[in-house]
């Protein structure tokens, strides 16, 4: 591989790059579903409750599991009947800031998204009437809903709002990278610092993996060997959206293997190799994807940089959320 010398960024250029990665100070909540502690508590309880699946075998946390950085560590998800799903379970980290949900963006909001997997026969296979009836029979839930939504019924709308509220509070913690952005030069090593520059320049990664979340929420065909049309099946007639999937954020990415929408790449080294020259050429290929002139050191530096995005968040597998009521 070519090993051409390249100019190092000036301090001003480096500071400009770093400025776009500062973390936000507050979590945004929508006007039509403002935060409340009662709503958060209810949403967390629902998120971990297997009542949300038809056979009582699965909760949201089955696929979005905190010890796996809120994914499941599997190439593709597994449904309530043990069936393999078609796409990898995405992390729920930092979704308060996300635009459009699911790998193909078919849900506008977290509230819209929350009820999808519950009702999907291949996933949780529950019906909303059955879920509402079950929750209504549970005194602890009746109390929790009354506290979270005074005067409102236990209904799909309030279930979705509660789960979405909990999900918005799932935010990646402070990573070594953040401490470096804040001015601690010892927070990351020289290789990771070089990797940050590669990420923003010759690696062309920041064209889509931008902002403190490391995503612009765009949909791109990155040349995976997959027949899944992704966003192209949601919006037909736009060639560029065939095989396009949502650009995932990269927070805690070292804890989120395997990678890509189909979980077909096992390691970060192999992800970088894919972007260098391993992608499928086809008409829908993103204009942002092209052969990258990266040296072996660049590749290693990129991976070193990506590993600095991991925050030492709790690996707890979930709280004890027993309602004290027997599941009916």
């Amino acid at each position: 591989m070519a090993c051409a010398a390249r100019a190092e960024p000036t301090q001003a250029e480096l500071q400009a790059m770093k400025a776009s990665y500062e973390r936000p100070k507050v979590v945004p909540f929508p006007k039509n579903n403002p935060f409340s502690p009662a709503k958060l508590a209810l949403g967390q309880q629902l998120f971990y409750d297997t009542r949300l699946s038809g056979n009582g075998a699965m909760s949201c946390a089955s696929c979005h599991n905190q010890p796996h950085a809120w994914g499941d560590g599997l190439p593709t998800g597994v449904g309530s009947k043990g069936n393999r799903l078609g796409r990898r379970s995405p992390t729920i980290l930092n979704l308060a800031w996300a635009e459009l949900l699911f790998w193909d963006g078919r849900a506008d909001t977290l509230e819209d998204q929350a009820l999808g997997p519950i009702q999907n026969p291949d996933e949780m296979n529950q019906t909303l009437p059955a879920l509402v009836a079950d929750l209504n029979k549970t005194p602890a839930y009746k109390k929790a809903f009354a506290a979270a939504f005074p005067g409102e019924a236990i209904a799909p709308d309030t279930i979705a709002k509660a789960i979405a509220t909990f999900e918005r509070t799932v935010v990646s913690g402070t990573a070594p990278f953040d401490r470096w952005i804040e001015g601690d030069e010892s927070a990351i090593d020289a290789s990771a610092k070089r990797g940050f520059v590669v990420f923003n320049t010759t690696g062309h990664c920041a064209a889509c993996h931008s902002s403190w979340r490391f995503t612009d929420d765009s949909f791109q065909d990155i040349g995976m060997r997959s027949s899944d049309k992704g966003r192209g099946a949601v919006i037909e007639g736009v060639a560029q959206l065939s095989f396009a999937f949502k650009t995932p954020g990269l927070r805690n990415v070292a804890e989120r293997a395997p990678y890509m929408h189909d979980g077909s790449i096992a390691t970060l080294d192999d992800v970088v190799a894919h972007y260098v020259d391993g992608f499928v050429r086809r008409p829908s290929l993103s204009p942002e994807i092209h052969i990258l002139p990266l040296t072996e050191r660049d590749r290693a530096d990129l991976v070193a940089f990506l590993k600095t995005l991991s925050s030492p968040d709790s690996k707890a597998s979930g709280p004890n959320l027993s309602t004290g009521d027997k599941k009916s």
Partner: protein
Amino acid sequence: MTFRKFVILTAVGGIAIAGAAYAEVHKPIIGQKNKVFSLQEVNMPQGATIRVENDDNIVHTLLITKPDGIRSDLGLQKPGEQLDITLEQLGDYMVRCGIHPAMKMVVHTR
């Protein structure tokens, strides 16, 4: 934005110009540059038309959610191309790019 392109229909209210010709000349133009609309929130009279122009060097595709909740896809918009959106309903139109959904704006009609 760039208000240089954005001509508010009501700014010259009272001037007697034939309706169709007036609307054609003064159609507000909203740009798209660096994956951002030049305005994120727009107030327009019901029935007016806005023109959305792709000033980027990449393609966009416009998705419209109308006040009645019905969605429509205006298709691919190449760099330099313009698309007109007529605002027939009263309420809020959500307009966003189907490829770059962070590029979005709300158009309120009154």
